[in-house]
């Protein structure tokens, strides 16, 4: 039917035997695999310093547009800088919910 030579028969038998052994080993490894607990991941995002950032840097933060960036800059100019991240709440338009979303992106030095 396939008209294979003896050499081709042997080659096919060898390759299929390898495939069967590999497949069996793979199955055993998958069935016996376990997950292990890991140490807590520390996520250090590149935070923006509220007392340094210009308008362009502020606008890179998701959720801050041109208007809000300008208000942050106005507040910084008016108050002489931010004393802490919590002061962001005093900027017009940054409510409690919005502050929660934004606070991880900023730092104050």
């Amino acid at each position, binding site marked *: 039917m396939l008209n294979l030579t003896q050499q081709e*028969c042997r080659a096919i038998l060898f390759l299929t035997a390898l495939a069967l052994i590999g497949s069996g080993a793979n199955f055993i490894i998958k069935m016996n*695999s376990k997950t292990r*607990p*890991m*140490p807590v*991941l520390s996520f250090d995002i*590149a935070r923006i310093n509220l007392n340094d950032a210009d308008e362009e840097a502020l606008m*890179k933060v998701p959720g801050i547009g041109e208007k809000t960036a300008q208000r942050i800059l106005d507040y910084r100019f008016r108050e002489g800088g931010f004393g802490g991240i919590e002061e962001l709440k005093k900027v017009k338009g940054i409510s409690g919910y919005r502050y929660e979303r934004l606070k991880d992106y900023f730092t104050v030095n």
Partner: protein
Amino acid sequence: MKRPILLLTISFCCGIIFASRLRMEWPLIYVLAVLSWGGAAFLRRKPVGHSVFIILLAFLLGALSLTSKRILPAGNIARIIPYRTSETYLIKGVVVRQPQRRGRGTAFMLQVEEIQGKSLNRSASGRIMVYSGGEVTLHYGERVILRGRLYRPWGRYLYSSGIRYVMSVKSGFDISRIGLKRGFCYRCFVMGLKDRLEGLIFRYLDGVPAGMLDAMILGQRPKVAGFINSLMRSSGTVHILVVSGFHVGLVVFIIAMFLRLLRVPRYWRFVISLPLLITYCLLTGASNPVVRATVMAVIFITAYLLKREPNICNSICLAALFILAFSPRQLFDVGFQLSFASVSSIVFLYPRLKRLLCPRPIKATPLAFVIDGCLVSVSAWLGTCGLIAYHFRIFSPVAVLANFLVVPLAALITLAGFSLLAAALLFPPAAPVFARANEVLIWLMVSINALLLRIPGACLRLPS
């Protein structure tokens, strides 16, 4: 039989289809496969019995390969994360596919190593697709921590690539680079080279031609302008924008010509071509058509080196087996189907059509070239029109004429593109000249497509 692998490949594919329709337990298929192997080994001196068992074994191996893919290890992300989740997770992993721009965001593939949620902090495995808002500069092999939400992918494409989850990351702020790199060093080198070549294309060409050349040479389709995509899809020439066997053939031709200029002996020309072809395959992202064409080219070259007669049908079947053995779900992927349907129909239909329409050999070379070009185009169209109509709901009778005109032009553009890259790397002052030549040729190709689509009935939209 000159094509024993054809029957084995068909049997393997039937096994995959069988396993996709009927869920059988892995151990049962495995035991049957081992028994078939035993039968084939026992009857190896009896041709008919041996062949029957080998065909059965190929069928069972096909079923086994798909069933194996369904079994996930305990740490796989799909087994750790609940089906419906709105929680924000931290995932640590390695970038395993070069990030690509998608609209306003960036997409890349990540090999997961660890996952952390509110009540979860474990090692994990599996791959996820990551979509991030904004432009993110990451490279292959970089280890990162991502923060975002996970959801199941839509459609079958990602699922067929073994991706069970998609992560949505708001912006680059939610990606933290750990800085360690892990990955196949040679692949890191190739990815670096790809970035450099891509930079050169965009430096010397304008946006639209640069996007097209990037797709034609480096296989980066996301940068092709939307109107070019729809124009070429309607005219049935969109395959030009995908690196395929046609491009691999051109690369072999360029390597062979270059080495011939250096007076390298024929045997060594082929030996040197092999690693260069594999490099090109990795450079273009090792998509299905490139892997198919590369495997076929490697088989042809190896057959020459081993002084054996290459058979094109056997090499197509081996390429299909090679892809399906690693990723059996590709059988249901439209790209895989179109790639193999087009090349198979050219191989099987073209000689028969030629015998039917031109029983006597044509002596005039230009006429023979025109007839051959038309027949190849018709063969490829006949082989793929059914699949295109089924999957995309488009029927393009103009595709035959469009391919006949556009394919030679695409060959010229590809050659000109490689010349541009060579000039930009070796002698930058000459690069703008090649860049203008490329722009003219690309403009001509787009114009021909646009002109052909104005013919009434050129492209018919089928009801969905």
